[in-house]
Structures are given as C-alpha cells and as structure tokens.
C-alpha cells in the first residue's frame, strides 16, 4: 500500500512563498522509513508546526513530511527533569503538561506553537539567549532517521558531527524521530517584568549592556518608524521567574495556574490598504505610549513569552500576499549595522509592525546555527513588488558588518549571501554529501540558497 499523500499548496508562517507540495502525515514511527523508501517523490523535507516564516519547511513539487502525528511523550525523569518525546510534540503541549508540575521549557521562541523537530532544526533561541544559549544547549540527544533509512542516535558524544549538523541544520540531515532534553524547574507560572522606555538606540543598548546580567529574560521592542534623534527608541522588557511569595495573594495558593486567556481569531486577510505607513505609525506610537512602564509587573508566562499566540492567524494581518520576516544578527562590535538598518527602514517608509532587538550570548557548534554573540534585530515587511530590491540593499549592509540572516525567517536570500553569512556551509555540505548522496532531502529553501541541487 502506498503511503497516503495529499497534494496541496503549503507555505510558512509568513505565507510567502506558497508552493505546491505532496504532503505526508505519518501516524506511525515506522512510516517515516516507508515514505523515504518508497521514493514516490523526487525529494522530501520534514515539517513541524510550520512556524518558520519562509520556505524552510516547504518543498516545491516534492514531498513534505508532517511530523505532527508523531507526538507521543515517551518518558519523563523526575530526578533530572529530562523529557523524552517524539519530534512532533509541541512546546504548547509540554507547557500544558509540565507547567502545573513546576517545569518550563528552558528556551522558548516568541510562540509556543512549534514542534521539537522545528526547535532542533532551527536551533531556536529565546529571550534568555544571553544567559542560557539556544535550544541546542538543553538538548541531550535525539534519534535521527537518515535518508538511507538507518536510524542513529546523536549526542555530543555519539555521532557528534551529525548532531552539530542537525542542530540548526534546517531538516536536511534526516528526520528527527525522538529527542531527550532538559526542562527547567520554575517556581511559578509567572514572571516579574521590569519595563524601561528609552529615548533612542543608545539608551536601549546601554541599558541592555548594564542590566542583562541580572535578568534571565531580556528583549526590546523598537519603534522602527522613529527617526532622527529618536531613532531606535525602545521599550526594554526584562524579566525573571518569580516564586509564589512574589505573587499577589490570590495567586499564591495556585502559582502555576495562569488562568484562561481570551484568544480571538483574525478571520480574514487584512486588505492591502489597511496596512500602510500611517496605520503602522499609529500602531507604533500607541504601542510606545501605552506600554506599561514600571517595575516588577507580574505577568503570566503565556502573556510574557507568547504575546502573539493569543490572536489566531495573526499572520493574516499582512494581507493576501503575505510577509517576510527579516532577522539579522551582527557581532557586538558591529552594532553600527543596527543603526544603518533602522535608518534605511525609517527612510524607506517600509513599515514593520514590531521590531525586536535582543543581545545574544555566545553561539554554539551547530554548523548552521544562527545565533552568534552580538545583537539581533527582527523586522516584518509586507510582501510587495518593491520589497526584494529593498532587502537586497539591506543584505549588503548586513554583509558589510559580518552579520547573518536567520534561515527560520528568511524567504529571499541568494546563494552568494548565504555562503558569505554561514562560512561553515562547506563543512555542512560535505557532511550532507556523505549521508545524503542522492539529495533525497531538499526544501524550497535549500534549493534557493544552493545547498541542494
């Protein structure tokens, strides 16, 4: 019996680009090998919850293997806090199951709607990267099904080379079946947040420099339409987990209960005209003005870590043509790049609803893992005909400052840019040649940046 397949258009979270794919959704572990072995498609790429913005989890004209039905939790060790589960388990489920027991995920991105497979393949980072590194840091080992069908264990000790090619390896080394990683003990489901509004970029940079060491979590929202003397004015949001003693009396007896949350759905695509420099400027002004100032604001983990998750399909806000997220990281010494990019954005009038700035700590050995020590800035742009040339110009700025773009977000970078930004691409490609000589794994992104033919 051939494995059931569904032909359909698939996109990333930015809904650009959209490609026709043949999607598989195995419900059994064994089916992954069957699908790869069948070779009914020219090539395959694994997919989790599709929260990457661009084209890393889509495969034009080829197979997409959704891992979402392989989502069994297999074991939990109370003594060490190590969870063993399949790659399709979502962060959201882990939080539902383990926060009431006093555990949180050590590294979470700005959405909890991601899978373990996606967390590994993009080596995701969170607001605590300066302290705790990326997801790879808490990852102990995983099982990987190679394109040959063989299943191997990868850890820092066993198959270390493949381990570090897979952490941040955008799904091209094999299909991750299961993983073991540490959860973090937390004293409650709440974070105490200190807000700081700064007048300009220098203000936020020096505040980050001075205070990051005392906060586990830190990131800034930047008003990217502010220009001139206000360029880079920001709201810095820093937080630490808080124990029951720090909670209001009503919450102390049930410190892991975050309470319900109102979650509306964005029912349709915003029309193009709804998103214009004016409306976005208004949004930014209002956001800046209304951001709660103050110290020690008690916020539940959902609201603090995943503010956007409360609006289902918020990606429709950018209209039918979708949007591109542009996340750039530059070494600490090259912070001037952030100034230049913000200037270019302010000047272009290309609006970004939210721009986020954060300081990264050290990177890891992942061959294509994104984070490097420095500053990371994230911008959103609605797709239109003038976007690509504008981004090409920004790319030049990034390259000039030895920066790099995050593949989880990217949808437009060229092969030349990719190679310049990820100098270890050659090692990666050589290893891939060894484990995937027939290029059975390939994605729209890997072809676009020249990693696969």
């Amino acid at each position, binding site marked *: 019996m051939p494995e059931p397949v569904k032909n359909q258009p698939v996109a990333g979270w930015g809904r650009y680009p959209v490609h026709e794919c043949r999607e598989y959704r*195995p419900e059994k572990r064994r089916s992954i090998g069957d699908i790869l072995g069948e070779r009914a498609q020219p090539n395959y790429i694994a997919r989790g919850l599709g929260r990457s913005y661009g084209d890393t989890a889509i495969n034009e004209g080829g197979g997409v293997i959704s891992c979402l039905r392989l989502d*069994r939790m297999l074991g939990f060790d109370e003594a060490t806090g190590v969870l063993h589960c399949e790659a399709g388990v979502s962060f959201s489920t882990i939080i539902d199951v383990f926060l009431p027991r006093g555990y949180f995920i050590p590294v979470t991105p700005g959405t909890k709607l991601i899978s373990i497979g996606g967390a590994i393949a993009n080596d995701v980072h969170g607001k605590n990267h300066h302290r705790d590194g990326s997801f790879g840091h808490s990852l102990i080992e995983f099982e990987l099904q190679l394109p040959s069908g063989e299943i191997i264990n990868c850890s820092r000790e066993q198959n270390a080379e493949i381990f570090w090619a897979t952490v941040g390896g955008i799904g091209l080394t094999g299909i991750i079946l299961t993983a073991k990683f540490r959860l973090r003990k937390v004293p409650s489901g709440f974070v105490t947040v200190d807000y700081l509004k700064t007048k300009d970029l220098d203000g936020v940079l020096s505040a980050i420099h001075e205070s990051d060491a005392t906060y586990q979590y830190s990131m800034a929202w930047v008003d990217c339409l502010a220009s001139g003397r206000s360029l880079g004015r920001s709201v810095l949001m820093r937080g630490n987990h808080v124990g029951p003693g720090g909670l209001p009396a009503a919450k102390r007896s049930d410190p892991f209960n975050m309470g319900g949350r109102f979650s509306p759905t964005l029912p349709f695509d915003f029309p193009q005209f709804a998103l214009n420099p004016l409306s976005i400027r208004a949004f930014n002004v209002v956001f800046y003005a209304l951001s709660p100032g103050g110290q020690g604001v008690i916020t539940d983990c959902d609201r603090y870590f995943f503010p956007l998750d409360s609006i289902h399909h918020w990606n429709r806000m950018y209209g039918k043509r979708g949007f591109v997220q542009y996340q750039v990281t530059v070494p600490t010494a090259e912070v001037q790049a952030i100034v230049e990019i913000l200037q270019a954005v302010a000047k272009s009038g290309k609006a970004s609803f939210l721009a986020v700035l954060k300081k990264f700590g050290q990177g890891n050995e992942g061959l294509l893992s994104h984070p490097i020590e420095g500053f990371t800035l994230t911008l959103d742009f609605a797709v239109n005909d003038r976007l690509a040339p504008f981004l090409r110009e920004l790319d030049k700025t990034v390259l000039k400052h030895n920066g790099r773009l995050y593949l989880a977000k990217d949808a437009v970078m060229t092969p030349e840019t990719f190679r310049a930004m990820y100098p270890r691409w050659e090692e990666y490609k050589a290893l891939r040649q060894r484990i995937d000589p027939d290029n059975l794994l390939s994605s729209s992104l890997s072809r676009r940046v020249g990693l696969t033919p």
Partner: protein
Amino acid sequence: MSARGVVVIGATSAIARAVAQQFAAGGCAVIVAARDQDENEAIAADLRVRYGVEGHAFAWDAEAFDTHGAFVARCIETLGDRLEGVVLCSGYMAEQKAAQGDWSLARRMIDVNYSASVSVLERFAAHFEVRRSGFLCVVSSVAGDRGRQSNYLYGSTKAALSIWCEGLRNRLYPAGVHVVTVKPGFVDTKMTWGTVPFAASPEAAAKAILKAIDKKKNVVYVPWFWRYIMLIIRHVPEWQFKKMKM
C-alpha cells in the same frame, strides 16, 4: 490508583488515541489494544507521562479470533471492578475497486469490521451483563447507512456492525448496560488523509464520543451534521438512487 478504567481497542487509530487521552485526562486508567505493539507501547507511555495515569498496552489482532477470549479475560483481570467500559475503534477500509476483484480484501473488511468486533465485544457484553453495569461504545460509520457503488463492501460491514449494536443495546438494556453506536462522517486520520475535502479533528470526534457515552446516547453522528446528510441520502428512493454516481 485510578478508580475508573476503560479499554480502547484499535488504539493506533487517531480517533482512538484521542479517546484514550481524553479518558486519561479525566483520571481513568486505560488499556490500549492494537496489533502494532511498538506503536501501542508509545501510545500507552504517552498516557502515563501526560496524565500520570495507569496505561497498559495489550496486543490485540482482530483477525486472530482464537486469542480474543484470553485478551478479554486479561483486560477484566487487570482493571477488575474499575473497568467501566470499552470503546472499539478498530476498522479496516480497502479501496472498493481493489476489494471487488480480491476476495481476501473484502473478507478482511468483514473480519476486522464485523466478525472481530462481535467476537471481542460479545465477551465484554457477557461480563457487563452479569455485573449489571458498563458501557460498550462501537465506532461504526456513516458508510453503513446506505450502500453506494464507491464504498459498499466497507459500508456493508459497518451496516452489519450497526445492526448488531442495535440488537445488543436492546438485549442489555434491562441489565443497565449501555451501547453507543458512533457513526463518524469524515474524520482527519490516516484512513482519510488526502482523500476527503474536509474532516473533523480526531480530538473533536473523541470529545463527541465521550459526551455520547456520558449522556448515554444511542446513535451519534460525528460531527453531528452528518445525521442530516445521511437522512437525506437515506431518503432518496432506491429506483433513483441506483442511477446515481455516489
């Protein structure tokens, strides 16, 4: 230790897995039964880790009829008085065209969908009847409501199963044992992936199933609107129906 327990048969079905999870979330001990024991073990482990309940994985092959007696005895022994009921989700659908020309496929549908269900559930029924409590929840199909050229071999096995449920319900009523017939329309599982235009999630289907058990419903359509779709389909006169392409 959980005070309540259920058996979910055909556990590798996504519907069954969601049913098992929802019972476990309510604090029930669960025995999951499937022929694919590796998968079954993972499903049971998941119940234990997520919900902290007792989760047992018992091997069960629908077509190995002579093992059914021992299987049922083991379930009863393991859960004892905690055993509240059984949900049967096992089923097999071969492609109609293929099954028309291949008796082994048609026969397998009869065996898995009808014979095995009767074989295993009659034994649980006997136990519940004596004990004078319990429920049997049987996942049949809307396909059993009318024979259509595109799916009548599968459909007729489900029709037989639905009729059997009716009789059993009638028999067990005085003993206070309840029988629920579940007729899913399209549910998003490996059985329907890529072949149907829309489908309910297995979680939603499971929720409706647990509710039907709780409310002692007799026959439920899942999702509910299939009741009306099937009402219309059932009422097309046969002289006209036979000319239709369905």
